[in-house]
């Protein structure tokens, strides 16, 4: 009957008939089946178990159980378990059968699509979860690292003392990486680097005097590589590293080595390294942790070094102002002496002359007054000379050129040494008071030296000024001297004074003297304040 019903559908369905569940399952496994119309009373399986067998073997195929009228409950159960529909055998007519088959196929397809979609959602959910877990791990790691950095930064910036900073760096490294030994190497000059601090080498060799050891980084391949690549370098096993024998680690039992460059202001200022006696000991994370400290450490070291430079600069200024105070005292003593000896004596004489005149007869008063006037003029001359010695007012009133011409006249008069003078660019020009004073004093001091030491009777002075600089040069063709030995012998307050004056206003003093060929002093003074050392009040 079924056959008849389906056949009447005019080729709409291809039908195959089997008589047992076993045969049905075998056929289904071959594929190409959309719908199974399942009788529930087959010889090898009946009822729901027949349905379940079909479903288990072909979950993607629609199943329509055919029930007897009295098995209505079985049909319903099958639908609940996944059948697309059920049909009551006795009630079959042509129309609803074809309709039911089509619906069943359609429903099964929709169901399959839905199931697939649901599976996809579940899979994605799983992916998301593992992604989230990974993110969480990374966040944890970042948090740990930032904590490490925070602690390190605190430790590194606690002190401005270089040695303290270096020890802190080794301490920080120790908390991050289990090293047997570690050291920090800092730039000294040119390609020279020196070990600034070291720890743990006593483990390898007794009291290796590594600290303050200075060497050329270029000579060691692993150090040179850090210099050139500006990145950290790992030697997993020094036994396999050809350059190692030539390195400073030779003789030590270092097997695993990690070196990290210290970079500040774009310069490699040094590096630090951690060592372990076991090959391949340090992990990628160890290396990463080592590298993390580098920027902080470089800044801390630069700051400490700068602070040290400032300190020594301050020290220089202090000793300079100490010398200035001493010079001032010496000058005051000189003035006091001259006021007493020169001026005081004349005033005493004047007092006596006037006193005598007052007691003299009227016709003799004129004579006494004339005598007083002579003493007075003498006094005026002495006061003027004293004032000029202290500071030629001309320098303030008329400027450098007039003051120098006056100085040369007076100098020649006092010493017998003549001065040949050329100048360019200073006539009619005024410079800052400090510059004019420095230029004047340097010429004065240099000329004094010519008169004292050169043994010649002529000095040459050249002064030339441009827009941004004034240059003062004093030369003689006299005896000359060995500059270094005179400067270091400390018998050169004149030379040192000239140098200090020059450097205070940011200039540069060059003294070129060779025994037997003469002396040449040159001071280049910048006209604009850049680079000058500020000086406190008097």
């Amino acid at each position, binding site marked *: 009957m079924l056959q008849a019903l389906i056949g009447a559908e005019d080729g709409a369905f291809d039908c195959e008939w089997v008589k047992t569940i076993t045969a049905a399952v075998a056929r289904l496994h071959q594929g190409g089946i959309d719908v199974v119309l399942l009788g529930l009373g087959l010889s090898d399986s009946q009822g729901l178990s027949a349905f379940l067998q079909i479903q288990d073997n072909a979950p993607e195929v629609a199943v329509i159980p055919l029930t007897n009228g009295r098995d209505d409950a079985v049909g319903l159960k099958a639908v609940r378990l996944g059948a697309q529909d059920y049909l009551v055998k006795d009630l079959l007519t042509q129309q609803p059968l074809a309709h039911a088959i089509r619906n069943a196929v359609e429903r099964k397809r929709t169901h399959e699509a839905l199931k697939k979609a649901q599976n996809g959602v579940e899979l994605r959910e799983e992916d998301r979860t593992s992604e989230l877990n990974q993110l969480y791990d990374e966040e944890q790691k970042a948090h740990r690292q930032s904590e490490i950095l925070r602690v390190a930064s605190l430790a590194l910036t606690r002190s401005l003392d270089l040695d303290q900073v270096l020890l802190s760096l080794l301490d920080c490294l120790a908390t991050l990486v289990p090293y047997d030994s570690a050291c920090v190497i800092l730039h000294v000059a040119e390609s020279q680097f020196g070990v600034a601090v070291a720890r743990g080498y006593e483990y390898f060799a007794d009291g290796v005097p590594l600290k303050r050891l200075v060497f050329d980084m270029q000579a060691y391949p692993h150090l040179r590589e850090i210099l050139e690549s500006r990145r950290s370098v790992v030697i997993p096993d020094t036994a396999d590293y050809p350059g190692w024998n030539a390195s400073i680690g030779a003789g030590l039992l270092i097997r695993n080595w990690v070196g990290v460059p210290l970079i500040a202001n774009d310069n490699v200022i040094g590096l630090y390294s951690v060592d372990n006696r076991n090959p391949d000991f340090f992990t990628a994370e160890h290396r990463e942790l080592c590298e993390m400290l580098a920027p902080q450490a470089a800044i801390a070291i630069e700051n400490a070094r700068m602070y040290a430079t400032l300190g020594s600069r301050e020290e220089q200024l202090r000793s300079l102002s100490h010398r200035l105070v001493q010079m001032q005292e010496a000058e005051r003593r000189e003035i006091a002496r001259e006021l007493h000896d020169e001026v005081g004596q004349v005033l005493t004489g004047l007092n006596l002359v006037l006193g005598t005149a007052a007691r003299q007869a009227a016709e003799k008063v004129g004579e006494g007054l004339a005598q007083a006037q002579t003493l007075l003029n003498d006094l005026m001359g002495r006061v003027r000379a004293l004032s000029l010695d202290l500071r030629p007012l*001309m320098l303030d009133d008329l400027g450098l050129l007039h003051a120098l*011409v006056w100085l040369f006249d007076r100098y020649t008069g006092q010493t017998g040494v003549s001065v040949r003078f050329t100048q*360019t660019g200073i006539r009619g020009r005024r410079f800052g008071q400090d510059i004019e004073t420095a230029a004047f004093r340097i010429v004065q001091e240099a000329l004094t030296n010519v008169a004292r030491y050169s043994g010649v009777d002529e000095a*040459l002075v050249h002064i030339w000024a441009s827009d941004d600089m004034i240059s003062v040069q004093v030369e003689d063709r006299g005896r000359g001297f060995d500059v270094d030995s005179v400067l270091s012998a400390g018998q050169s307050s004149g030379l040192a004074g000239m140098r200090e004056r020059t450097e205070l206003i940011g200039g540069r003093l060059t003294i*070129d003297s060779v025994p037997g060929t003469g002396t040449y002093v040159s001071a280049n003074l910048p006209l604009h304040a850049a680079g000058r050392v500020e000086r406190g009040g008097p």
Partner: protein
Amino acid sequence: MTTVVLADDHHIVRQALRALLETEPDFQLVGEAGDGLEALRIVERLKPHVLVLDLMMPGLNGLEVARQVTQRCRTKIIVLSMHANYAYVAEALKNGVAGYVLKDSQASELVNAIREVAAGRRYLSAPLSERAIQLYGRKIGQMPADPYDTLTGREREVIQLAAEGHTNVQIGQRLFVSPRTIETHRANLMRKLGLQNQSELIRYAVKRGIVSVDS
């Protein structure tokens, strides 16, 4: 009658000058000032024949007062100064001063000076002379026409060796000084001569005959 204004920041000096001028019947002292700015105001208001001016005064120094007075009125100026130095004299005359009297000269000199400048002539105190002022002017004006003359002996040695192609290190060895010192000499001589680079230096040296082209 010659009208006179006195400007000096020292009370004692003004008192002495007043006493001196009062002994001359043809002089009339019309005003006194204790600093430069006051002097300028009084002279502009009173327009005296003669201003007797201290060179160094607070506020505005004597040279500047002189310059401004000669720009604004016909008052003749006599500077009273303790400086016998020609630098001061020359600057004062440049600023339009008619008389220069030293503070340590005889009192009668100032009286003569006032009469002279009031009559339109120049007056310089006894040890000063016009001739010396000219000489001084020449001394100051002495500027080398040729920048080569401003080179030191060392710089002349260095330019020659540099033009012959020696490096600073070689020149330093030759002259027994450090290369850095030679560097200073070289930089200085190039600045003086306005030379920018080594090839300009060589060209200059050849042109001056410091080195010959064949060497």
